[in-house]
């Protein structure tokens, strides 16, 4: 995840982006109690929050009557191999019709985070899926069973969507062995 600072070193200091067209001024006011780092996404504004006060920040965003993010669009995670796992919240306000993406980075050693179901009920199943696919544990989740993976087999340490999880080999049916006991191939 390249952020503004890394770009800054390579080339002479670019003027800090003022995000004038985006929600940044309101978001900054709403999240003043938390240190926030904005970034410009392809469509909507992206805001980085530190791990310990993500849930507090989301609560502020939801109950702030200016922003009123009452709709959790989607909750997912991105595995950046060595930089840890990013948990991404896409928020939307039905009344104000604007969007915001909230991201937080979890180090690979302890992928633990508070559950967002206290803020939105919608996060219930989405967190279950992120938990089983990325190995992130959400403390206080009401129903931490696996969502998509089978329960009868103990897959608690298998997290398929991590980059470390290998792709399955394709059982190749072609080639000399299994094709056909036709006469010599290429007999055209």
């Amino acid at each position, binding site marked *: 995840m390249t952020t503004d600072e890394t770009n800054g070193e390579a080339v002479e200091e670019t003027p800090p982006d003022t995000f004038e067209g985006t929600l940044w001024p309101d978001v900054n006011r709403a999240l003043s109690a938390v240190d926030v780092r904005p970034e410009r996404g392809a469509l909507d504004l992206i805001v980085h929050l530190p791990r310990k006060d993500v849930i507090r920040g989301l609560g502020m965003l939801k109950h702030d009557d200016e922003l009123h993010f009452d709709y959790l669009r989607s909750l997912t995670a991105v595995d950046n191999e060595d930089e840890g796992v990013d948990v991404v919240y896409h928020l939307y306000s039905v009344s104000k019709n604007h969007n915001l993406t909230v991201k937080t980075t979890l180090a690979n050693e302890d992928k633990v985070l508070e559950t967002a179901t206290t803020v939105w009920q919608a996060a219930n199943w989405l967190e279950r899926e992120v938990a089983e696919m990325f190995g992130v544990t959400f403390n206080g989740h009401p129903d931490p069973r696996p969502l998509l993976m089978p329960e009868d087999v103990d897959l608690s340490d298998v997290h398929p969507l991590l980059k470390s999880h290998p792709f399955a080999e*394709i059982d*190749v*049916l*072609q*080639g000399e062995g*299994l*094709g*056909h006991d*036709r006469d010599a*191939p*290429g*007999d*055209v």
Partner: protein
Amino acid sequence: MKGILKSMMVTASTFARKPVTREYPESHRELPERDRAFPLLLWDEDINEPFCTGCHACERACPVECMTVIMKDNPNHTAHDGPSKRRKIIDSFYIDYGRCMRCNICVEVCNFEAIAMNNTWQGHETSVYDRSDLVMDLPQLLAESKAGEIQEWVAE
């Protein structure tokens, strides 16, 4: 009860309409020319050899990796005073119809227009008893085109 009578009138009206079902094995629906059943190789009538030179372009582009291509030197290339200009020709070509997802990418990447999508009913009716019979080798892939039954559709 007015609603119930109304819905019975609707079923009565369809009672009078012509049935839409078609007796499949006897009468086949006429397939559009762009229909994509399964990929097959094309036969070059005038030099009597397949167009395909085994350049692996389709094998690399295939999302499900269902193709295996082995090329060889072309015996009737002009160097051995044969009619063909192709230095390399396909030696053996396997497509696993069981894996192929008919996404037409191989036809798009092929720069010799050697592979096309089968748009005949024979291409659709490929049910077999054993999954390994779905692996089509070179003679099977060339059969329909050699018999001249394929008018392949080329996207301009």
